[in-house]
């Protein structure tokens, strides 16, 4: 154990380089910076409820309509007081020069035309100064203002003509009462609410998994490739420590550093996402509770085991690939199959339902061990525990096979002689066991 700890300590020290720390700190700062910029932009967009209006119509209706905009959550700023004459061009110039993004022009005869049930056009000017998220929010405001005006005017007419009926009921005679059914539970609510909640709850799991697998795999690949490149592997293989312990120390070292790196990375990513969502936390509602869509301790445990086994599979596979790499450059090429094996289930789980795939494709996708934790998070919520358990058993078998192969390679000549050089002929030699 003392020798193993000695080796493990060395593996971790070798991996935690100044470059890694700088890269992690930089990533953290970058995400934080991007998050706060995005948050600021969105807040700016949301706060832009100021509506600048040039009213060329002096009717009481136009004044009444504008007054109502205040009740709809807009702050109306009349341009009539800001520009010398009631001139549209001057109002536009003023808006351009005074950081006003949104200008509403109510034409002359607006009140009279509306009173006669004749549709009237109002002019809306959006001054785009950038294509940021903030400007998207601003453009959405055009629709909101026009809708608020239309609603007010049409409701007023309906009230006048049919005073005993609520205009909203008249305009929307059919209403829906939504129910959601999940397995054997049913509750009143919208499916959109459920979907949004589940997605917000489980969005980070595939991302965490992908990052941890990528980080750890790359590290174990590099650790072995660097030993080969720097000619330290031969010496290490002749010291009195079993080959199995060398393999495990390399995998464990990479796993620990990969996990810590991924946590730091995720911390940064979370602050970035929190910027995008404006720091909105979606809490478990009655609907979610009624449907039982919550993580139970058992579910969390299964998810954790599933994630852990996926990482172990990735580390074992990377160890084998690392032996094939001749140097660090080769290791980078070797990481490509790993990336593909992780990206396929990652994208499938993000953008489609793996269960809805055709059977042959589903079998292929499910044969990738990394698919199982990606689908596990949703299966935990849906209480499909058996599916997760089958996945865990499958990953355990795959891991045992991979670790057996990795240990075999390390205990034979192949660890030194096996290599796969891109553009060159594959070479390998017989691999009689040297001894663990």
């Amino acid at each position, binding site marked *: 154990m003392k020798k193993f700890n000695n080796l493990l300590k060395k593996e971790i*020290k070798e991996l935690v380089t100044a470059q890694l720390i700088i890269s992690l700190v930089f990533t953290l700062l970058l995400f934080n910076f991007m998050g706060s910029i995005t948050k600021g932009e969105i807040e700016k967009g949301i706060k832009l409820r100021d509506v600048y209006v040039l009213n060329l119509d002096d009717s009481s209706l136009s004044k009444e309509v504008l007054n109502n905009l205040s009740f709809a959550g807009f702050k109306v700023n009349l341009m009539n007081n800001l520009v010398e004459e009631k001139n549209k061009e001057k109002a536009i110039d003023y808006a351009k020069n005074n950081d006003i993004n949104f200008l509403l022009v109510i034409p002359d005869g607006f009140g009279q035309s509306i009173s006669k049930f004749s549709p009237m056009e109002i002019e809306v000017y959006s001054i785009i100064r950038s294509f940021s998220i903030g400007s998207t929010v601003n453009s959405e405001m055009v629709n909101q203002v026009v809708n608020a005006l239309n609603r007010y005017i049409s409701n007023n007419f309906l009230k006048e003509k049919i005073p005993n009926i609520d205009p909203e009921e008249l305009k929307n005679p059919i209403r829906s009462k939504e129910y959601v059914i999940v397995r054997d539970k049913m509750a009143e609510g919208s499916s959109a609410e459920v979907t949004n909640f589940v997605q917000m709850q489980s969005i980070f799991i595939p991302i965490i998994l992908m990052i941890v697998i990528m980080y750890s795999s790359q590290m174990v690949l590099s650790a072995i490739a660097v030993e080969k490149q720097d000619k330290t592997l*031969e*010496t290490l293989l002749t010291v*009195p420590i079993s080959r199995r312990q060398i393999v495990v120390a390399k995998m464990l070292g990479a796993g620990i550093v990969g996990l810590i790196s991924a946590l730091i990375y995720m911390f940064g990513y979370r602050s970035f996402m929190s910027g995008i969502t404006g720091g909105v936390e979606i809490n478990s509602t009655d609907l979610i509770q009624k449907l039982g869509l919550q993580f139970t301790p058992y579910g969390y445990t299964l998810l954790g085991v599933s994630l852990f086994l996926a990482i172990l599979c990735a580390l074992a596979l990377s160890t084998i690939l690392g032996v094939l790499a001749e140097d660090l450059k080769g290791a980078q090429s070797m990481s490509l199959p790993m990336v593909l094996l992780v990206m396929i289930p990652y994208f499938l789980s993000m953008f489609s339902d793996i269960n809805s795939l055709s059977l042959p494709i589903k079998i292929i996708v499910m044969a990738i061990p990394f698919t199982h934790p990606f689908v596990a998070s949703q299966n935990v919520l849906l209480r499909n525990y058996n599916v997760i358990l089958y996945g865990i058993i499958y990953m355990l078998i795959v891991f045992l096979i991979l670790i057996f192969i990795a240990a075999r390679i390390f205990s034979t000549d192949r660890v*030194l002689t096996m290599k796969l050089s891109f553009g060159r002929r594959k070479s390998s030699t017989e691999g009689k066991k040297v*001894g*663990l």
Partner: protein
Amino acid sequence: MDFILQVENLKKYYGKFEALKGVNFEVKKGEVFALIGPNGAGKSTTLRIIATLLSVSEGRVLFMGKDLSKYPDFVRENISYLPEEAGAYKNMKGIDYLRFMANFYAVDPKDVDIFVKRAEEISELGDRLNDKIGIYSKGMVRKLLIARALMTKPILAILDEPTSGLDVINALEIRELVREYVKEGTSVLLSSHNMLEIEFLSDRVALIDKGKILEIGTSEELKDKYSAKNLEEVFRRVVQ
């Protein structure tokens, strides 16, 4: 006879290629035994098999009477191997590298300090041991590695081109050091292209070519047999 190492009809195949075609030799206790031969003769393959890096295809290797294929751990505990193109961990300080390697051989925690102190003396790197290996010259790395190989006073030190990359003075110092360690009981199996080094260091020499041992004897015996002035001449005549 008190043999540390017995190599019996050792064969090694790389696929269909027969790298070693039945190599036989023994290394006695406290002896410096040298393998010389042209490039590709099978010297490094032989050393790597004895260092437990490569497997035995046929024949057997006995280390202190124990079959190497059956007791690799026992062999690893009692030998140290210096590969021809060895490197050290660039991000480590020299002193940390020595300590890291010493930990594998130490039975008692105090042994680590003893090994490291000995390595400091062998390497003569002084304060430079506190620098990262990445900034060492090739010669400094080689001295560090030799110190690592000898610090544990192994029963058998396998040195593949031990003074490769060292200047004349440093090479001379290392040769003297190896001789000193032999006096203390360590046996040495070495390979070198430097015939002067071989003559100076070795008690017996084996000439190997195309996977076969062609001659074994002391330098003097071989020179007499081939009426040669030095080992270089012997080498040329045997190989040609």
